[in-house]
């Protein structure tokens, strides 16, 4: 088996605020193989976006990577200088944001922005760069790319802007794309189009992808593996089918149970009581303890991530096991 494209080991990204250190990401480990899609799932404040930002080196002060390593093709991204990181960012690793206007400069034409990106990492003529930009726009399904290159971002619809942002991410055929909720703001039919496009691209180019989202149903159709985050930690990971069909962690279990389509129509949805704890002063032990129906005295001790079934890792001492106790 070949080495994974990305291997994150015990990543710690903390924000050092006046009120104390906020451990937004606290000991996260996962790996993404070549051409694979990892779905990183969690609710607001679970640390999923900060994990993404850490990988691409965009954590701003007061936040910083306080420990762990991010091995990308054998190099530790956490130890690279800003210069070396800039060299990788945009060429070998790219990011797609939720709001495409974060990627696009509103006062520059699309061609200016795309050619600039090509020239930033490649010594080619401007004409070749334009060629590359046009081909990439065509690849993400933008009709008449020659004309669209001359347009400004505001002349595109939300879905088209996101396609342009994806095209920019693809310009240098990166080995890894970190996508942070890229379809959350889009309408369902447009989301369907973009997901289909992304699926095709991953399959044909062998690009690995980390798809950060709160939407389990998007991940269900798109990802190979899934990692569920809660309060800065991964609580469960494994193959998509396994995790979604037989969730082990009570949080994953509750999350899947609260999706409306998994419930009988008109009946009360199964819900997780309470709300996500503040990361500033997490109680000791399992962070989900206060909301967990299976919590016991033993949960006061910090649970560790353990492979309790082949290929299934979970951070819980009372996992949902076997059909006999299926809820």
């Amino acid at each position: 088996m070949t080495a994974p494209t990305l291997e994150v080991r015990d990543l710690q990204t903390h924000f050092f605020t006046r009120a104390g250190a906020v451990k937004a990401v606290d000991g996260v480990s996962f790996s993404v193989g070549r051409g694979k899609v990892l779905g990183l799932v969690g609710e607001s404040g679970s640390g999923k976006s900060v994990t993404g930002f850490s990988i691409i080196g965009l954590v701003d002060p007061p936040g910083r990577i306080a420990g762990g390593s991010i091995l990308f093709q054998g190099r530790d991204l956490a130890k690279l200088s800003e210069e070396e990181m800039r060299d990788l960012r945009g060429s070998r690793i790219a990011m797609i944001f939720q709001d495409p206007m974060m990627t696009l400069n509103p006062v520059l034409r699309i061609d200016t922005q795309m050619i600039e990106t090509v020239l930033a990492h490649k010594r080619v003529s401007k004409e070749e760069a334009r060629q590359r930009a046009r081909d990439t726009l065509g690849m993400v399904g933008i009709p008449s790319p020659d004309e669209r290159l001359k347009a400004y971002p505001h002349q595109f619809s939300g879905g088209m802007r996101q396609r342009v942002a994806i095209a920019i991410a693809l310009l240098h055929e990166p080995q890894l794309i970190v996508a942070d909720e890229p379809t959350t703001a889009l309408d369902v039919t447009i989301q369907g189009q973009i997901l289909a496009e992304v699926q095709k691209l991953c399959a044909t180019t062998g690009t690995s992808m980390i798809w950060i989202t709160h939407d389990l149903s998007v991940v269900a159709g798109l990802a190979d593996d899934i990692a569920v985050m809660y309060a800065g930690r991964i609580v469960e990971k494994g193959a998509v089918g396994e995790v979604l069909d037989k969730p082990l962690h009570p949080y994953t279990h509750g999350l899947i149970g609260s999706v409306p389509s998994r419930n009988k129509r008109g009946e009360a949805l199964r819900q997780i009581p309470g709300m996500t704890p503040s990361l500033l002063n997490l109680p000791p032990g399992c962070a989900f303890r206060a909301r967990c129906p299976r919590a016991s005295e033993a949960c006061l001790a910090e649970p560790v991530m353990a492979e309790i079934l082949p290929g299934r890792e979970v951070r819980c001492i009372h996992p949902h096991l076997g059909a006999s106790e299926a809820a």
Partner: protein
Amino acid sequence: MNATPMLELRGITRRFEKKLDFAGRIAQRLGAPVREEVVHAVDGVDLAVRKGEVVGLVGESGCGKSTLGRMVAGILPPTEGTILRDGCDIKALSGPEARQMKLRTQMIFQDPYASLNPRMRVLDIVGEAPRVHGLLDGASFDDYVDEQMSRAGLDPGFKRRYPHQFSGGQRQRIGIARALAVKPDFIVCDEAVAALDVSIQAQILNLFMRLRRELDLTYLFISHDLGVVEHLSDRVVIMYLGRVVEEANTETVFRRPNHPYTRSLLDSVPRIENRKRAFSVVKGEIPSPINPPSGCHFHPRCPLVMERCKVEVPKLREIAPGQRSACHLNDQ
């Protein structure tokens, strides 16, 4: 059951016009082909909601669902058409009667951050309207607010706090308490759970269903999320670019959708049951409501388009008992 629907919309239309500026008017006078831009946000919608029903209103951006909700809630007057409450035209009412009627419909908004005044304490946010309208029934102001807050699942001990001291889910509960404090019988929920996390969303949806039982409420539930609508609604109305394209009870819409748009919409929804599946694709973009396509608005994206669809607007008509659809294919 009462034969008169609780709410009836007849030919409701709402246009937004962008008036020409000074330069534009001069250019027009000189014969330049500039015209005022008109957006047909809602275009001739007929809809009836019976007492106790939950009607889900579904559509993508720009389909006019929010505009329709605002007209129902009385925030926005319709350009044309009539709104009947219990068979009585709300435009014909005036003075205290009109005020009473307006109180009976309340709205819950999408953004729990923008829809609460950041400078008001929860006590005043929830209690202001019932005090102004004299609904306190002799109960003390504080007791009344306490009752409203506990009903929405909020600790009345927090009533002296400001909105920023609450999480998104709790703020949405404040919005719900505020809406219910004036004792409405009809609630318009405009994407009321769209901004919330899945686990919080489930809590709020359960609250909606509990309140419906306890207070005998009727909902118009506006959402783009088909999963939520399927779970909550008795009947579903699908809109596309200002027009209703299909309407039927929930079961029918999800099992036997008729309109090609409904079918593509349902196909596009990612479902947790679908693994590693090729996403089915509806071609094309949502057209701009400033310049909608001729005939059937969906024809440029429709996989079954015919010549007729490009010129003739299909009528919304009954195709099966309780199912209405606006598609020319049903004529064949």
